[in-house]
């Protein structure tokens, strides 16, 4: 990444206007043509420096829900349970963490009331208790990673 890439990554995290030519202002600020700017964004995506570029949707405001869930999974069944959990399309992220609660996943459902149904189905499939940790208050979301 060169200095222009760094400025571009920082700027792109802040958000673009909703307009017919949303890249013009950034291109101008960075002293690039719009085509050169778009090529850089595509390269940053291809190199996996950026995972995605576009609208960032909020599941809650779509009527759905995101919930964090944790499980205590026995060591000898860990990979089997991971597969049983990951098979659910509502499981968006799943991480192994270093704790007695050693599996942490995020459930994304299109309707808030579906979360309990999915949790019950996961408990039935895995024979592990799911600790449901829905957010009760949001203080901040959306780090800008400075580069």
């Amino acid at each position, binding site marked *: 990444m060169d200095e222009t890439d760094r400025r571009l990554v920082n700027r792109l995290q802040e958000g673009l206007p909703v307009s017919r030519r949303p890249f013009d202002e950034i291109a101008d600020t960075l002293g690039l043509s719009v085509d050169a700017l778009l090529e850089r964004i595509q390269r940053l995506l291809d190199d996996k420096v950026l995972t995605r570029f576009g609208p960032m949707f909020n599941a809650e405001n779509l009527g759905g829900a995101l919930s964090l869930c944790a499980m205590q999974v026995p060591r000898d069944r860990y990979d089997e349970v991971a597969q049983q959990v990951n098979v659910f399309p509502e499981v968006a992220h799943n991480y192994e963490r270093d704790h007695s609660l050693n599996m942490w996943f995020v459930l*994304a459902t299109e309707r808030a009331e579906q979360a309990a149904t999915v949790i019950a189905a996961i408990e039935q499939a895995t024979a592990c208790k799911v600790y449901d940790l829905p957010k009760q208050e949001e203080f901040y979301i959306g780090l800008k990673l400075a580069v």
Partner: protein
Amino acid sequence: MMRYQDALTDTAQHAEPIDAVDRQIIVATQAGLPLVAAPYDALAEQLGLDVNDVLARVAAMQASGIIRRIAAVPNHYALGYTVNGMTVWNIPDELISEFGRQVGSLDFVSHCYRRPRHLPLWPYNLFAMVHGCTQQDVDEKIAVIGALLGDHCRGHEVLYSKRILKKTGLRLKG
């Protein structure tokens, strides 16, 4: 498994906060916005809509918070932020809103939420994700949170991720 699928179908009948055209726009852009100089024109053409209608709908979804912003999502690891800790804190309930706001306003905290305790196993009610380039960097940031909470904190832990088991985004069915 049948009962589970039936229950999902049943709850999908409820009133929608978006209409069918909004939904088309979401489905068409959830993998990303077209990387062209006039992306909403491209989107309008793809969906057979008027570009002004597309712009108005995207702006309305942003105003109502369905879209947080039109932006890039960086890969933490590729940018050198390889140490990512989920810090969890046990704060008296009557103080959590104030301390949650203060912790959430720290520039190195990406997500900050109040979540329920599950006693006795899980006494923590404040979650803050902390990202850094080195372990020392993250340790110093966690110490800043600890100092901010002071004696009001009755215990904390940091859970580091050992392995990503799955990672996908929000996926609406088309």
